[in-house]
């Protein structure tokens, strides 16, 4: 809806959205200049939970930083484990046993499903539907139980080790995962799609709302479902394969529309693709050790290294500069939501408050990952 928007300061007011607001899912603050219910200008204000993770990396050993990785994107913590591990392994030249790679893929994909389920729940909650949240949490709970049984924690995992994983998966986990996949397969079309995706109110709320063009994605460096929802087929797992992803047959869902519905559908399809990957990984799971031989104190040779993984929200990149000592010289973390959020101001201009919040929900923000 295009409505002439006056920018005269006496006809606008500033609305402070956050840092405590039900829709910002964390301590994000957005300074909105409003004309009635229309947004004239939106300015995200970051930094409320900045914890200096990158600096902390420079203060401890390589292994000590592993805990921190899970504290950034707490919803897809294992991908962050993976991204960091991958970079350090590349730097130190560690050969990872094949079983470990499979276990990593299985757990990361399970974690991705749980992250998307939680996003779905929170997104529908943003749109005012409270009930779907509890159904999604019911399914997510099963994943958390499974991951707890192997990793020992439920949210901030520290499961990966350089050249290995902390704990081997057993038959119980494999059976439990298969049972869960069967369960989610039957529930996905019945509960998620029939009740919510097809709902006319939901569709009217998110179709053609918050359209992001390819050009905007390129300018802001958007990745993940936001980029794929705008019609660009880019997935790190496919374009810059790492781990054992080339062994699996999976699709990269792409939607051309670029609206909130497209991003919604990308994530819903990704849940299905993750299930496919997990099934194949479980079928192909090789026997073998779960830990490579790694020196007690890791000292990667001097150099500049980079590793990237596809996290639930987009590309998580890790740039490591090593000076050959036991602590990293510099660790730069590239988190996807930071870039995805930075386009909010441009897109939200001229939008209704309610639509802007629906758009914000569709970006899938995790604030601790923006404020590292």
């Amino acid at each position: 809806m295009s409505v002439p928007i006056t920018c005269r300061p006496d006809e606008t007011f500033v609305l402070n959205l956050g840092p405590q607001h039900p829709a910002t899912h964390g301590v994000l603050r957005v300074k909105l200049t409003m004309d009635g219910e229309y947004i004239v200008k939106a300015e995200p204000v970051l930094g409320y939970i900045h914890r200096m993770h990158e600096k902390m990396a420079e203060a401890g050993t390589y292994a000590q930083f592993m805990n921190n990785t899970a504290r950034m994107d707490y919803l897809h913590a294992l991908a962050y484990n993976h991204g960091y591990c991958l970079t350090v392994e590349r730097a130190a030249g560690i050969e990872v046993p094949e079983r470990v790679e499979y276990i990593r893929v299985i757990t990361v994909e399970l974690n991705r499903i749980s992250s998307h389920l939680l996003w779905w729940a929170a997104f529908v909650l943003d749109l005012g539907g409270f009930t779907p949240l509890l159904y999604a949490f019911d399914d997510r709970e099963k994943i958390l139980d499974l991951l707890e049984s192997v990793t020992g924690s439920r949210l901030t995992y520290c499961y990966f080790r350089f050249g290995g994983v902390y704990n081997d998966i057993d038959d119980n986990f494999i059976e439990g995962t298969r049972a869960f996949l069967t369960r989610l397969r039957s529930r996905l079309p019945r509960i998620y799609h029939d009740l919510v995706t097809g709902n006319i109110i939901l569709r009217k709320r998110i179709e053609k709302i918050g359209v992001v063009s390819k050009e905007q994605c390129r300018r802001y460096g958007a990745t993940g479902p936001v980029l794929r929802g705008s019609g660009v087929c880019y997935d790190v797992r496919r374009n810059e394969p790492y781990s054992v992803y080339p062994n699996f047959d999976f699709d990269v869902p792409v939607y051309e529309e670029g609206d909130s519905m497209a991003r919604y559908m990308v994530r819903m399809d990704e849940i299905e693709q993750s299930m496919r990957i997990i099934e194949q990984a479980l079928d192909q799971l090789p026997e073998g050790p779960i830990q490579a031989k790694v020196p007690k104190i890791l000292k990667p040779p001097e150099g500049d290294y980079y590793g990237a993984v596809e996290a639930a929200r987009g590309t998580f990149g890790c740039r490591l500069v090593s000076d050959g000592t036991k602590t990293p010289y510099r660790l730069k973390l590239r988190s996807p939501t930071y870039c995805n959020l930075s386009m909010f101001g441009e897109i939200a201009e001229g939008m209704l408050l309610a639509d802007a919040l629906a758009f914000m929900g569709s970006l899938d923000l995790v604030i601790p990952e923006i404020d590292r």
Partner: protein
Amino acid sequence: MDTSIWRPIFYLIGFMAFAGLNAAYLGWCERKGAGHIQRRTGPKEVGPFGLLQPLADGIKLMTKQLLVPRGVDGALFRVAPVLAMIPALTSMVVIPFSDKVQGRAVDLSVLLIFALASIAMIAILLGGWASGNKYAVISAARSVSQNLAYEIPMLVTVITIVMITGSMNLEQIAQAQQGGFWHWNIFRLDKSLLMPVSFIIFYICSIAETNRAPFDMAEAESELIAGFMTEYGSMGFGLFMMGEYLNIVVGACLTTILFLGGWDCPFGLFPGIWWFLIKIYLLIFSIILVRWTYPRTQIYKLLNLSWKILIPFSLVNLLTAALFLKIF
């Protein structure tokens, strides 16, 4: 009329009890219903099945300080919650629960109820405005435009009913529908073919008028925090909540009387107040079910729904009913 002293007192106590119980226990029903819809149990700790929970909440709210923040229009801020409650309570007086149970028979009771219902909107406007909170002001503005938009189709459907019945007295409207469900206004296709449609319009409007999800624009918590209630605590908040539930009861009563035959039994057996109560609680349950199933709409789509769909349909229905009345 030798019982003229006792009648008002009896009804006053009766209606206050009915209103109080409804205001308190609909909250419980809603939480319990929401719980079961969401595969939870709902309240269960305080008393059997959590039945004492409303009491505990009430005591908690009453013992809290009524905080009036600085920069607030004190008088309006205090008056608004009362204004939200009183009209709903007053409306109860003219509602005929059965042919015998009615506080006061007023010839223009339909008009009176709608006049009172509009005051609830003013309460929200005052509450939001007096708070001086930006979210509350947005909420108040939304609420007014929403209520204005939805009162029109609602009143047009009511005019249809009034034309068919030839009376603005709720009791007479209900009387005219006695004798089985085929006499109910919703099924009276001989008066206008669009009667079921106008029932749906009235139902949607009553949800919108009472600010219930999916039309709860004024309280859209993911956008406006708590809307006009953001600055309210203690019984100020409590009164708004009770007012909301009472408005739902009044809305359900009106729907029942205007469309579902009032206290009439669908099969012509034992008409009485119990049928009236069954009907209103089924309606209230459906409203709760809708709230916990669907996401919220957006304010402009909501207004479009009213102006572009509901109002034309209700006008067509009005014209058809007028035509039928003229011809037959």
